[in-house]
């Protein structure tokens, strides 16, 4: 199989303006991935599928990943006045790296029997800019899997022919696979509540119900 570097070079030869970055995987599996920018994603995917040397015609697995905001601390040199004289002092500055949602695709070739080639795309943030291009026009196998990612992670796939929830019901509000999802605590009916279940049931009672009891 061609290495990710060779595939990246092939993509850049075909689309010089495309954003393609290699992300290394340090685990023993050594399945490195290519991160695609949104603008050329569908064109690159079509290229990966149709190019005679690559022919990744089989998109096996599509999934989402939620990366939360994380705090990184960096050491920065700043000039400060210490004892009347200006000196360079190292200071630790905390910075928040915004979180994002990610879609990961595992591609195989049934012709060359190669794979997996991992391609990934990320959204700008986790809140309001959660769109990315759908790859259903390239691989039909993404149809249900992208619906599932939309359902459980809330990524909006633009260009998906039928983007509806797959596993949760249509009226459901949140996206349960997100890392910061909080389960509602009133989804179960308990006929004989006691202890902490009683306390939880009481918290959901209206004032009228409490008065009646």
């Amino acid at each position, binding site marked *: 199989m061609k290495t990710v570097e060779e595939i990246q070079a092939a993509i850049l030869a075909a689309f010089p303006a495309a954003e393609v970055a290699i992300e290394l995987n340090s685990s023993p599996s050594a399945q490195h991935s290519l991160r695609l920018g949104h603008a050329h994603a569908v064109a690159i995917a079509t290229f990966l599928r149709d190019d005679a040397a690559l022919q990744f015609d089989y998109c*096996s697995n599509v*999934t989402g990943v939620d990366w939360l905001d994380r705090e990184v601390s960096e050491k920065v040199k700043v000039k400060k006045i210490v004892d009347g004289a200006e000196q360079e002092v190292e200071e630790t500055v905390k910075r928040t790296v915004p979180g994002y949602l990610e879609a990961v695709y595992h591609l195989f070739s049934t012709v060359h029997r190669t794979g997996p080639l991992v391609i990934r795309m990320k959204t700008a943030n986790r809140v309001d800019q959660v769109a990315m291009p759908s790859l259903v026009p390239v691989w039909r196998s993404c149809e249900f899997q992208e619906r599932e990612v939309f359902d459980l992670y809330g990524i909006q796939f633009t260009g998906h022919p039928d983007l509806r929830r797959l596993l949760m019901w249509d009226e459901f509000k949140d996206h349960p696979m997100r890392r910061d999802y909080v389960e509602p605590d009133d989804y179960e009916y308990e006929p004989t509540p006691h202890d902490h279940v009683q306390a939880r049931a009481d918290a959901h009672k209206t004032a009228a119900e409490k008065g009646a009891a």
Partner: protein
Amino acid sequence: MTATIDKKAPGWNRPPVVTADGDAELLEVAMGPHHPSTHGVFRMDVALDGERVVKLKPVFGYLHRNHEKIAEGASYLAAMPYTDRLDYFCSLSNNWAYALSVEKLMGLQVPERAEYIRVILAELTRIQNHASTIGFLLQEMGASGTPLMYAFREREKIVDLFEDLTGSRMMCNYMRFGGCRVDMSEAHLRRAREIVASLPGFVDEYEALLTSNEILMARCQGVGVIKPELAINAGLSGPMLRCSGVNYDVRKVDKYGIYDRFNFRVPLGDHGDIYDRYMVRVLEMRESIRILEQALHDIPAGPVQDVKTKSRGLRPKPGEAYGRIEAPKGELGFYLISDGSANPYRYRVRPPSLINLTILEDMCLGQNVADVVLIFGSVDIVLGEVDR
């Protein structure tokens, strides 16, 4: 950017929709979630013009319990028994796929004897799954009971062996990262050899009953056809892919475990219809018997797990891995991301049952509503895996 769908691309060559002529009205039918042929709780919203299907939308989620979220909250080892509940007909294959992914993530080696035991158990699982699937398909065709009970008679012997070895008939929870939980004793192997020796007779009997049966041929041939280009583009796997003539078997492609040591062939279909799916499964049972004969003959002595391997409190180094096997229903994959902690940051199951249903509507459009039951039955799904 917004992509437009090129309906001429390989994934979208749908047959023309037969629409109601004149002022005829379409009848909307909800097949399921309690329809006896849906193999569990699954719904198809079907629009009918007379008896012909003009629209079919599958509705999922009745059995959804967010298996992936549960596993992300548990340790690596604690997710193993949950994998039994995905495709509960083939828990040992599920165990293997998950163990294989964690082994890829951590670079673990599996002892020789454990690899043989895994092959033996996975191929026995495949035989009982295919026999039962064909039995269910015939049940849906109206052959009430007989073929299914023939299949269950054989399945009983196999699950009895599983019970003796693992403690459970269906929820085996047997494989471990870097090996297996307990060794197969000489008595187990003797029993397995007896079962394998009796299986060719069973497949012959099954074929004598079914293969040239006129009703089966009339109902299955030319129904629910999938073209090879569509099968690849839609990510079908297992017998669903190979019935269209696509030579792609993960056992041959990835050669995971020790599958490169066995001499076996990959059965391929010609037409991609229900009959070919039936035939591919029958031939796969015969090939599995060949693999089993070789594995049971060659199995070496030795440990089934390296004593130094730690199962509990596993903390893989940060990284990710996608591992897959050829499960009886198709390509079963697990995608794991580790952040260095004791539970997976991301745990994803690639369910062959769900993805094989992607083209259910394409196969059913223009067919009679009675054939929808057959087409759906020939896909071979288990709802525990579809909805997770």
